[in-house]
């Protein structure tokens, strides 16, 4: 006996662009105003899933239901400022003596799964790609651990403090080949990415600015994995950087680059692509108010909050306009299924998908977007999902979609598929595609209705290998 999904879920209308809304989206005032659901733009399961996808690593069923009843702004209160004891959680994880970069990868993934403050980890991952440092060159897991801990402690605080700290971070300086910056031989290896990647962006500085900044940073060394300042190696003479003159130090350079409008614009642009949309834009005009405000205090939490609460965030401009990174793909399977899996194995599998934590390819981090996807990485997504869901092998039986469905009151061959489609895709799937998913058969006609665990595994695998599931 073969049974199908009980009744087709109505296709979510909230994604259709209402003409009036489209016009408003280019108006910065309306775009950045806090989203309040109305008849035209209702608060739906799809919206709740969208929020958890971007501000966290996906949601389980209880979180989705809670979000539906709380509404968007109250859900955001919890995501931005959770009530849990974050400090205690982080302390526990920070104290693990990790030893190797491979175990650091595993601990971080575990933290992403279990954290009471997923937005903090999401933003730490953002900064890990922004201040991308590759452990292969640093060859010192302790320094890598310190760097990511530093990024976490500032991930939702002040970009000013973060940038200053990074300019003195031994792992960063070793990775860039900037561990010796002598007066007689200024080293541009930090000054260049500082301007090109961390702040101003290409085209907003000259070669001369890089050279003068390098002179300002002279005197800083990394000796035996320790940061050292050697005063006699500092060039205290006059420099001219981005139009300003003075006997600048490295800290002055940080101050000067942060005073440039281009820096705030570049960072807002980058965060926009991370939180809202990576397919196009944004127009300079649209993000101008955010950049202006960010330039005043470089308060990251305030900026992220503005973006996440906005009309724009809950509009078609943002919905499904990103491709899940490998981490987002894998945790998007793990989180809804409420299990904790071996993250040592997962870290290696994610490396094969192109996202090797602690080993970003270059100082520019992971480019991502469509670059995540080709037929080799897609077949590996298929195989990773299979390994996670099949109930045996390296990941064991930690993820069991049927158990989760039963826990939430869906135990029949009719209700289980519907539940999983809502859980993983928030019901947003076209009827033809839904009908083509594997049928869930009763394994036997036993008194308990038969064990559906295996067919449900297969059904869940078919969902998470859909093109739709790769969208964030």
């Amino acid at each position, binding site marked *: 006996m073969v049974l199908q999904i009980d009744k087709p879920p109505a296709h979510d209308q909230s*994604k*259709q*662009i209402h003409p009036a809304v489209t016009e408003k989206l280019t108006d910065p005032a309306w775009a950045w105003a806090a989203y309040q659901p109305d008849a035209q733009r209702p608060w739906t399961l799809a919206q709740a899933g969208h929020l958890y996808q971007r501000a966290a690593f996906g949601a389980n069923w209880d979180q989705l239901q809670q979000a539906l009843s709380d509404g968007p702004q109250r859900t955001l209160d919890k995501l931005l400022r959770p009530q849990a004891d974050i400090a205690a959680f982080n302390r526990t994880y920070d104290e693990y003596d990790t030893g190797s970069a491979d175990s650091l990868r595993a601990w971080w993934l575990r933290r992403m799964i279990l954290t009471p403050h997923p937005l903090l980890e999401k933003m730490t991952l953002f900064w890990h790609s922004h201040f991308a440092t590759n452990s292969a060159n640093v060859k010192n897991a302790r320094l890598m651990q310190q760097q990511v801990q530093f990024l976490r402690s500032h991930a939702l605080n002040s970009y000013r403090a973060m940038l200053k700290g990074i300019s003195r971070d031994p792992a960063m300086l070793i990775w*860039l*080949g900037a561990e010796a910056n002598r007066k007689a031989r200024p080293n541009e*290896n930090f000054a260049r990415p500082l301007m090109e990647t961390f702040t101003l962006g290409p085209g907003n500085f000259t070669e001369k600015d890089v050279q003068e900044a390098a002179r300002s940073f002279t005197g800083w060394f990394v000796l035996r994995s320790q940061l050292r300042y050697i005063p006699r190696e500092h060039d205290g003479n006059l420099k001219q950087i981005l139009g300003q003159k003075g006997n600048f130090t490295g800290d002055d350079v940080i101050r000067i680059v942060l005073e440039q409008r281009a820096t705030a614009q570049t960072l807002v642009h980058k965060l926009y692509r991370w939180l809202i949309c990576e*397919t196009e834009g944004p127009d300079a005009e649209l993000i101008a108010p955010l950049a202006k405000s960010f330039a005043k205090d470089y308060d990251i939490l305030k900026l992220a909050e503005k973006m996440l609460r906005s009309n724009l965030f809950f509009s*078609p401009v943002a919905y*499904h*306009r*990103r*491709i899940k990174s490998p981490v987002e793909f894998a945790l998007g399977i793990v989180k809804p299924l409420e299990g904790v899996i071996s993250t040592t194995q997962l870290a290696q599998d994610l490396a*094969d*998908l*192109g996202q090797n934590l602690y080993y970003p*390819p*270059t*100082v*520019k981090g992971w*480019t991502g977007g*469509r*670059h*995540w*996807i*080709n*037929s*080799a*990485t*897609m*077949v*590996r997504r*298929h*195989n990773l999902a*299979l390994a996670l*869901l*099949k109930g045996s092998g390296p990941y064991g039986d930690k993820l069991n979609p049927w158990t989760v469905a039963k826990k939430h009151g869906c135990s029949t061959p009719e209700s289980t598929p519907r539940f999983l489609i809502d859980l993983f895709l928030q019901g947003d799937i*076209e009827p*033809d*595609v839904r009908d*083509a*998913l*594997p049928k869930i058969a009763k394994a036997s006609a036993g008194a308990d209705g038969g064990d559906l665990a*295996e067919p449900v*595994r*297969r059904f869940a*695998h*078919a969902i998470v*290998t*859909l*093109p*739709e599931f*790769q*969208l964030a």
Partner: protein
Amino acid sequence: MSHTRRDFLKAALGASTLLSFASAAPNFLTRSVMAASSRRKERDTVLVVVQLTGGNDGLNTVVPYDDDEYGRNRSTLRLPTKDLHKIGSAMGFHPRMGAFARLYKDGFLSIVQGVGNPNPDRSHEGAMRIWHTADPVRLNRQTGWLGRAADSVWNPNTTNAPAVFVGPIAQPFALNAENVVVPSIRSLGDLTAGQIPGYPNDQSQSKHTSELPRSDKGNSLLDFLQHCTLNTYTNSRRIEEVAKTTANTAEYPSFQLAATFRTVAQLIRADVGIRIFFVEFGGGGIGGFDNHANQLGNHCALLHQLSESVAAFVHDLRRDKLLDRVLLMTFSEFGRTLKENGRRGTGHGSAAPVFLAGGRLKGGLIGPRPSLTDLDNGAPKFHTDFRRVYATVLDRWLGFESRIVLDKQFQPLDVLNV
């Protein structure tokens, strides 16, 4: 739009299916079909790069047997002239490289002599870094030449992996790209879609869902993902088919390197759009070619394995009329010193020969034989910048733009019949 893509559309959908979509056909399908008919055939040549890790002794690989300096400086390592496979110009292949000598005589192998770089580094790490980045000046360069090559041909609708590393060690830095994800694989299984046991139709089911048209909500990402998913399962099935039909037909010796070449040949045969394969020989790390002591036996075994494995690869491809699409090149981070070191071994050198194998070679020895009297720190000097070899394979063979990859235009070598 290559033949591959056209084939895959045909295979995956069938002409009639496409027609039946008619008005409902998703945008990407319509676009693909139109592109297939309008665009001329893209190049489908394949490059196979073989890294000989450790610094191969070129002088005992292609031996200048009539040069008195050779015999004088190599009292224990000198290979007997009568055992060499002579190829003219008073050169001969190592006695255990008979297979290379035959390839050479048949025109399937060329030797580029005296390849090196103007800023040689005699440490393994430094020299290898230079070959990988193709940048002898900026030593902390963060991308490899093949990674940049992969990035240079990427476009937003690319769905095939442009390059792969086949092997069990960490991916060589040459493939490090800023943008593109270059996969590392150990076997064909890494590129085929697995199934949940007991559900033999899982794959066709998945393909089925990815084939269905989606209403266009103005989201080009979904279009792209659908296109790629479809291509993924088509490629997977092609690889499975090839693995099934050719598993036992081609003859390869029982070396690890030969098994790797067999995998590469199968992927070429499956025609899944991979343009660059990277293979490592010597074991990673410092590498098996680094023979500071008792070189003779070890080097002999390595060259024999290399020679037999490459020959098996060439014959396999030739049998299937695929050889004309394939060019193989070897490299090693440096050659070795002319004079042996008193421990029956050699020191780190500079220039070394690069071997090219394939069906479209002009053949022969390329470039003059490096002098054994005018030396650079005891080792033969380079006369051909390694980036000229890179420019040759990028421009003339793959049809990429080497200028983008190598920062400037190096003059390609006239070695190919293309």
